[in-house]
C-alpha cells in the first residue's frame, strides 16, 4: 500500500465519525491543509525521477480529489441529517397564541368616521365649529327668539364670562346647528356640508348624557326642496345601512327649519318587521330635518328668494349604540377597558 493509499485509508477511518461542520473543516485541514498529511507527501515529488513523478502526481491528485469528494459527501450527509433533525421538531400551535397588543377606536370615533365617509361619497364637505359658542349662533341666528320656550327644550349650559360674570351670552353649544350658520357665513352656495361634533345639554339619565355627539347636514342651492331632502336621506340610509330600507318623515318643529320634520328609518335589524331594537314598531327614530327657515337665511345674508336649502341632524352616540348594540349610554364615557376592548375592528 502506497503512502497515499495509507493516508486515504486513514482519512476514511476518520471521516465517518465526523459529525459537525467544524470537525469536517478540521479534518480537511489535517489532510489537505498546507501542513496536512497528504500535502506533506507532495514534497516527496521533488526527489522523484521524472517518470515516477508523473505517476505520483496523478495518484496524488486522485487521492486529493477522492478526499475532497468524500468530504463533500460527508458534508451532504451531515446536512441531510441536520435537516431531518430539524424536521423532527414540533411545536404545539394550539397553545394560546402570543398576540401583539391591539388598540381600539372608541365606538363614537368609529361611527363618526363611517358616517363621514358615507357623506363624503354623497358629495358633502366636512365642517366644524367651536364647542363653546355664542348665543348669537347657537340661538339667535337660528331663529330662536329671545325668551321663546323653544330655548327651554335645549336645556342649555351657560358659560360665565372671562371674569366670572353671568349673562356673557356664551353657552356650551346645544347642537351642531351653529355650524350651519358658520358654514353659510364663510362659504358660497352651493353649500353641502356635514358637521359632526360634541354638544352639551343639561340632561343625565340612562339614555341622555350631558355631553353627546351629533352630526348635522346642510345643503343650500337654487331650488333645493323637501323632495330632495327625502331623496338624500334615503341615499344616506341606503349607503350606510344597505338598500331597501324605507324612510319616513313626520312633521315636527325646530325653529331653524320651516317646514320641519322628524325622520325615521325602517329598522335595519328586522327590516321593518318589528324587533327589540325598534321596540316592535319597525321604525327607528333618527333625528330632525327640514327646509332652512327663511329667517335663518336672512340672518346670514343669503336671499331666501334666490336660494333654498335643507338641513338634518341626528345623534352619533345613538347611532353607535344602535350599530353596536350598546345597552347603556354611560358605558361610552366611563373608559372601562373591558368595554373598549369589545370594538377591535
Amino acid at each position, binding site marked *: 500500500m502506497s503512502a497515499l493509499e495509507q493516508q486515504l485509508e486513514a482519512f476514511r477511518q476518520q471521516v465517518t465519525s465526523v459529525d459537525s461542520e467544524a470537525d469536517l473543516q478540521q479534518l480537511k485541514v489535517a489532510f489537505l491543509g498546507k501542513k496536512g498529511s497528504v500535502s506533506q507527501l507532495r514534497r516527496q515529488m521533488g526527489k522523484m525521477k521524472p517518470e515516477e513523478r508523473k505517476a505520483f502526481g496523478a495518484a496524488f491528485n486522485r487521492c486529493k480529489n477522492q478526499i475532497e469528494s468524500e468530504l463533500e459527501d460527508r458534508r451532504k450527509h451531515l446536512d441531510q441529517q441536520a435537516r431531518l433533525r430539524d424536521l423532527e421538531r414540533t411545536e404545539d400551535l394550539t397553545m394560546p397564541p402570543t398576540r*401583539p*397588543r*391591539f*388598540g381600539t*377606536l*372608541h365606538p363614537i*370615533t368609529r361611527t363618526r*368616521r363611517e358616517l363621514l365617509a358615507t357623506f363624503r361619497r354623497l*358629495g358633502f*364637505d366636512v*365642517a*366644524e365649529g*367651536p*364647542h*363653546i359658542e355664542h348665543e348669537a349662533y347657537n340661538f339667535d341666528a337660528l331663529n330662536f*327668539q329671545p*325668551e*321663546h*320656550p323653544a330655548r327651554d*327644550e335645549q336645556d342649555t*349650559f*351657560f358659560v*360665565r364670562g*372671562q371674569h*366670572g360674570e353671568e349673562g356673557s*351670552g356664551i353657552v*356650551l353649544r346645544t347642537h351642531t346647528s351653529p355650524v350651519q350658520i358658520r358654514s353659510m357665513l*364663510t*362659504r358660497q352656495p*352651493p353649500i*353641502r356640508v356635514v358637521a359632526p361634533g360634541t354638544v352639551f345639554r*343639561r340632561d343625565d339619565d340612562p339614555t341622555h348624557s*350631558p*355631553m353627546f355627539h351629533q352630526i348635522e347636514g346642510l345643503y343650500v342651492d337654487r*331650488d*333645493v*326642496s*323637501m*323632495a330632495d331632502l*327625502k*331623496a338624500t336621506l334615503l341615499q344616506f340610509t341606503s349607503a350606510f345601512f344597505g338598500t331597501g330600507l324605507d324612510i*319616513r*318623515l*313626520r*312633521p*315636527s*318643529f325646530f*325653529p331653524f327649519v*320651516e*317646514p320641519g320634520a*322628524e325622520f325615521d328609518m325602517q329598522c335595519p335589524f328586522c327590516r321593518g318587521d318589528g324587533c327589540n331594537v325598534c321596540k316592535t314598531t319597525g321604525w327607528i327614530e333618527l333625528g330632525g330635518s327640514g327646509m332652512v*327657515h327663511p329667517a335663518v337665511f336672512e340672518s346670514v345674508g343669503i336671499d331666501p328668494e334666490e336660494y*333654498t336649502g335643507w338641513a338634518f341632524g341626528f345623534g352619533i352616540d345613538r347611532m353607535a349604540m344602535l350599530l353596536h348594540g350598546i345597552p347603556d349610554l354611560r358605558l*361610552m*364615557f366611563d*373608559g372601562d*377597558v*373591558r368595554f*373598549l*376592548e369589545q370594538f377591535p375592528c
Partner: protein
Amino acid sequence: MLISCYWLNQMLDRDEPVAPAQISEILTSLGLEVECQEVHGECVGDVIVGEIRAKDPHPKADRLTVVKLFNGSEELQVVCGASNLPEVGGKVAFAPVGAVLPGDFKIGARQIRGVDSSGMICSEVELEIGHDGDGILILPTSFEAGVPLHKLVPQINDTVLELGVTPNRPDALGHVGVARDVATKLGCGLKLPELRPLEGRSPEVAELPELVTLDEDAQDRCGRYIGHALQNVTVAPSPLWMRVQLHRLGLRAINNCVDITNYVLMEQGQPLHVFDRARLNEGRVVVRRANADEPMTTLDDTEIKLSAEDLVIADAQNPQALAGVMGGADSMVSEATTTILLEAAYFNPPKIRASARRHGFHTDSSYRFERGVDHSRGLSRASTRALNLLEDLAGAECIGHTEVVGERPPAAQITLRRSRVRRVLGVDVPADAAKATLTGLGVEVDDSNPEAWQCVAPTHRPDLLREDDLVEEIMRFYGLDNIPAVASVPSAPVEEVRDPSQARIDRVIDSLREAGLHEVVSMAFTAKDKLAPFASVTPESQIVEVQNPMRVQAGYMRTHLLPGLLDALEVNVAHHARAIGLFEVGRVYAWPEAPNAADGPTAEVDRQLPRESPRAGILLCAGRSQASGYDARSASGTIVHALERLGLAAQVAASDQTIPFLHPGVQGRVLALVPGGEPIEVGVVGEIHPDILRGRELPDGLRAYYAELRVDEVPTVGVAQATGLPRFPATSRDLSLEVPVSFPAADVVEALAQAASVALRDEPEIILAGDHFDVGRRAIEVVEDYRGKGVDAGQRALLLRMSYRAPERSVTDTEVQKLHQKIVVAACDLLKPRVPTVRVR
C-alpha cells in the same frame, strides 16, 4: 299634553266617533306626536247605579252597615263599611257579583262577619275615576238604578293620548286646537260648545269699568283682560262628569270654581283665574308692574319677592297674582267664597316666560301664556265658556263685566305663492286641497289671484307668520308620505374647504390605536380641584366656568386631558386587573390671555369665545397586572411614535423639573424635529406626579405614565419623499461615556451631534448616517445605560454607537477611526463645563 279621545270626538261634527287608533295615527302624521296612550274604564263596565233601599247596622260590627240595595231589578243584601252612605233613596256605584274592578279585583258573593254580601259599593278610587278614596262615590239621585254607570258618565270610558306638543303650537294645548287639526284632516266641521254670551241678555249685565284697570306701563305686558264679577256663587264639588273628565287628564278635582277654570283650560287651552272678590281690596283688580321687592304669597304658599319686571294682578293695594304664572294665597277661592272675579287674559309671552323663570315657577298657566294664547276670539270664547259653566254649575250670577286692551300682535297678513309651495316641497299640491287645509285651520284665504293668495293667519296660531309657515301647514295635511324622493343636482361644483387639522387628528388617533392603546371619550367638564395641579400651566383665571352645571364636580371646562384619563384609570383599577393603556384625543378649553385673533365673517363672535385646542393624551398604567410592559419609556415611545406617524422625527428633551403635574425626576419635553429648522416643543411626557395619584381613589404606590401632544402645534409635513438607498456600507464606532445618572442622555447625544457637525466640515465626503439615509441625529444611538460594577454610584456609562458613511465610496477604517476620535474629544470638551466628571471609558 293629555288629550281625551272622548272629549275630542265631542268636538268633531260627524255621526260616528273616530276610533282612538285613527286619532292617534292622524295626530302623529300631523306632527302632534302621540307619545303614549292609556285606555281607561274598561274594567268598570259592569258597575251599575244602585239605590239604597234600607240600611241596618251589622249585627257583629259597629262600623259595617247591611244595605238593601236595588240594582234595577231586584234588592240585594250588601255589606258596606263606608261612613258616608247616603240615606235611603240615595244612589251609589255598585259592582255586582262577577264584576272585575281595576287591579284584577274580582267581586264574588261573600260573607262579611257572618252576613251575606252580594257585591260591593265602590269609591272613586276603586273605579279609578277620581282621587277620593275616603268614602264611597255618591251619585246624583237622578241616576236610574240598574243603568251601567258609564252610560250616564261617558267620560269613564276613554282613551287618553299623551301628545308631545312642540313649542310652536300653543293651540294644541287645548282640546279645541287639537280637534281643529283632526277635523281639518278628516274634512269635517268643528263643533264647539254652545255659548250664552252676555250680549243681548235681558236684563242687561252692567259694564263695570272700575273692575279692571290696566296701568300705562303694563300695556306691553298685558294685551287684553276680560273681567267678570259674579255673585251668589255656591262653592261645592263639581258634577261627576267634570270630575271624571279632569281625572282622566291627570287633574285633581277641587271645587266647582277651580275645576271650571281647569276644565276650560283643557278645553280651550286658555288659562283662567278666579279671585275671591270679597277678599280683593275695593273688589277690583289693577294690572300693573310690581314694585321692586314687593312681597307676595302664591297659592302654593311660597313667599316671593317681586321684581319691577314682573306683571301682577293687584287689588287696590297688594298683588293678588303673579300674572299668567300663579295666583296669590290671599284671594284664593275657598268654601266661604260667594263672589268672584273671573279673569281671562292675554299676557305677553316672553315677559311671562321671564317672570316664571325668575321665580322658578313652571305652571300649566305659564306654560301656555309663554307660548302665546289666542288673544282674540279664543279668549272671548274661553271667558264666556267659564262664565256659563259657573252660572250652570255654581249658581253664579254675573253682575258686571269689563275689558281692557293693551298691546297685542296684529293678525299676520301673508301672501302665499303657489310657486313657493312647489319650490319648497318639490311637489304640486292641488289648489283645492291647499285651500281646504288653510281654511280648516282658520286661515282666511283670498284666492282671487290664483298664483298669489292673500291670507290672514288666525290669532290662535301665533306661529303662522310668513309664507313658509303656510307651506308647512299645507305639507302637514297633504302628507309627507306623498312627497316624492327626488334628488336634485348641485347647480355648481360644491366648494371643498380642506381643513388639515382634522386629518392630522385622525392620524394621531390611528397611531395611538396602532400602539395598542384604547381610545376613551371623557366629559369635557370636570371639577375645579382636578384642574388645580395645572394651575401654573393654565392659571385659574383662564379656566372656563359653567354657570349652571348639573353637578359641582362638573362645573369647569377641562384645561387638560389628564383629569379625564385619571377618572378612567380609577374606573379600570377598581374593576379589573388588566393593564391599562388609554388615550383620548379631544379639545381643551381656556380663556386666552388676549382675545382670539380671528378674521373672516365670524370674527366678531369668535373674538368673544374661549380658545379650544386639540390635544392627545396618553395614559399608561400597569394597574394590578403583573407584566404590562408599561413604563416611562413606553410612554415616551408612544408619543414619539405618534409624531413619527405624522412624518416627523421626534425626541424627548430634559424638562428641568418644570412640569408640575409630572414626577420631578421622571419627566421630559417632547420635541418635533423639523428638517432644517429648530426643534419645536409639542408635548410633555413622564410619570404622573405621585401627589396627584394620592388624591385619587387608587392603590398606594401605583405608578402611571402620561404623555400629551399639543396636536395643533405639531408642524405640518408634506407628502413623504423617497431617497435612493446607500450604495456603500456604513461603519460604526462605539464609545462608552461616563456621566452622572442625572445628566440627560439627550444632552450627551446633542454634544456628539454638535461635535460631529463641526468635525465633518473638514471631511465633506463623509456623513453621519443611521438606518435612515441622511437623517443626522438618528445616526447616534444610545445602546445601553449601564450602572453597577465598575461604575461609581451616581454615575452611569452610556454606550453610544455612531455610524459613518461616504455616499460615493467606501470609508476606510483609518479615516473613520481618526474622525471618530476627534468627535469624541470635541464632544467631551463641550460637555465638560456642565459635567466636569465626564470621561471616556
